[in-house]
């Protein structure tokens, strides 16, 4: 019986070793905080109810973003973003614009900074229909959104303090970036992140607002970093530590 238990334990260990996802080098920074997911050029933003013109978001507008994930890491690395039978898509909702602040810089540059707050996100595992869309063929938001927000929600949470920065450089070129914070608060994979604790993590990337697809305000290309689950050291007393063991 002992031999059988030993054999079973060995098989279980081997099976676990096989199932643990390989750490993708693209995911690993070496700092202990790694990338969680990434998308390439196939994120599309839009907002309303007022028109977004000249890179200026009117205060009170609500931003939505839809995207198809191209890289999954960490606890999600066992999922294949190119699975022929499934796609992994994300939507951001309810990000309220504080209004765009414009300012000059350099010899003739201008920057357009917008802060959005109070949003949510959901990452879906669903049937393949939105993943192939690019800037050239993504349908209007009303048609596209339902296909991005379809399937099982594997992660969800809040997005706050999303800052978009669009710049027109002194050479005349337009580019941009975004940076924000998110917290995981739900989804079927929630418990695999810091034991279900909703820790704040970084999201950032390219925010390209020039010549967007029809119906959108721009396309984006970015990533979510994984939450840092390490527990910071805290000061305590010997007396307090002793009480933990009494």
């Amino acid at each position, binding site marked *: 019986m002992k031999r059988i238990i030993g054999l079973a334990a060995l098989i279980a260990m081997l099976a676990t070793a096989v199932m643990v996802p390989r750490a993708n080098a*693209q995911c690993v920074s070496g700092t202990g905080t790694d990338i969680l997911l990434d998308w390439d050029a196939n994120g599309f933003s839009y907002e309303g109810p007022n028109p977004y013109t000249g890179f200026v978001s009117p205060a009170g507008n609500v931003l939505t973003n839809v995207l198809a994930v191209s890289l999954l890491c960490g606890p999600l690395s066992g999922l294949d973003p190119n699975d022929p039978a499934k796609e992994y898509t994300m939507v951001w909702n309810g990000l309220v614009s504080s209004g765009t602040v414009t300012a000059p810089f350099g010899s003739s540059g201008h920057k357009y900074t917008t802060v959005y707050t109070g949003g949510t996100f959901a990452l879906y595992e669903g049937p393949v229909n939105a993943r192939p869309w690019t800037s050239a063929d993504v349908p209007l938001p009303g048609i596209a959104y339902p296909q991005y927000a379809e399937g099982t929600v594997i992660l969800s949470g809040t997005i706050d303090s999303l800052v978009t920065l669009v710049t027109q450089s002194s050479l005349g070129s337009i580019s941009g970036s975004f940076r924000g914070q998110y917290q995981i608060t739900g989804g079927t994979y929630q418990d695999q992140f810091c034991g279900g604790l909703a820790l704040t993590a970084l999201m950032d990337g390219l925010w390209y607002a020039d010549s967007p697809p029809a119906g959108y305000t721009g396309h984006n290309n970015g990533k979510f*970093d994984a939450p840092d689950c390490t527990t910071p050291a805290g000061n305590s007393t010997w007396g307090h530590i002793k009480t933990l063991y009494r």
Partner: protein
Amino acid sequence: MKRLQPLLLLAALVLFAAPAHSADRVFLCGFTGYDYVNEANPSGGGIPTPFLALNDEYCGVGFITSMSPLLAGVTNPADEHTFHLSEAMASSIYWDGAVLEVIFAPHARFRIYEDANHNADYGVDPVNATSPATFTDGTLILGADVTNLVLVYDYTVNQGNFDCMADIDEGSQLGAIPAEQRSGWVLSGTAGRPNATIPDGYVNQLDGEVQIPPATAAESRSWGSIKNLYR
């Protein structure tokens, strides 16, 4: 007046010959990584503010995260694909205490490598034993001459971006890119500190893409209509 007309036309053409930032560009590849600076005058005390000064070399390394179908048939998806931005020399600096704008001299290089060894490792404090060496030790599949490189970084929000014109002119897979699609744009968002993902010695986290023009479809025309173009 007649002499003025061509001059005005030429002036108008020059004025409107801005970079072709249009929606009709197509995706060549996406990338993620980190940037670093080879300082012309090393400060020796960590990353200075601003992080670039005149004559500094701006560099970036990282991974290609996805590729255009143009390259799908000629690259091995199981291999490691990396990029290296180098030889970008800061030739003009604007710094007002919050916003940094850097314009770079022409002829920087952006290169993409394919490597059966999955060995790319950022390490810390580049240049180091593994970076950029392990990002450039594969087969050079595409390389580009980079011009009009400009970087803008806003310290009030700890983020920025760079963009440039890239003329793809080298690499084992150069033939996979039609000649009319070899001039494109590299765009990247940058996120600085606080940012736990950035290895020591690197400056910003990068996330970007390379866009190229769409293929121009051939059209059937008569000799008469072609002759009319020159009359």
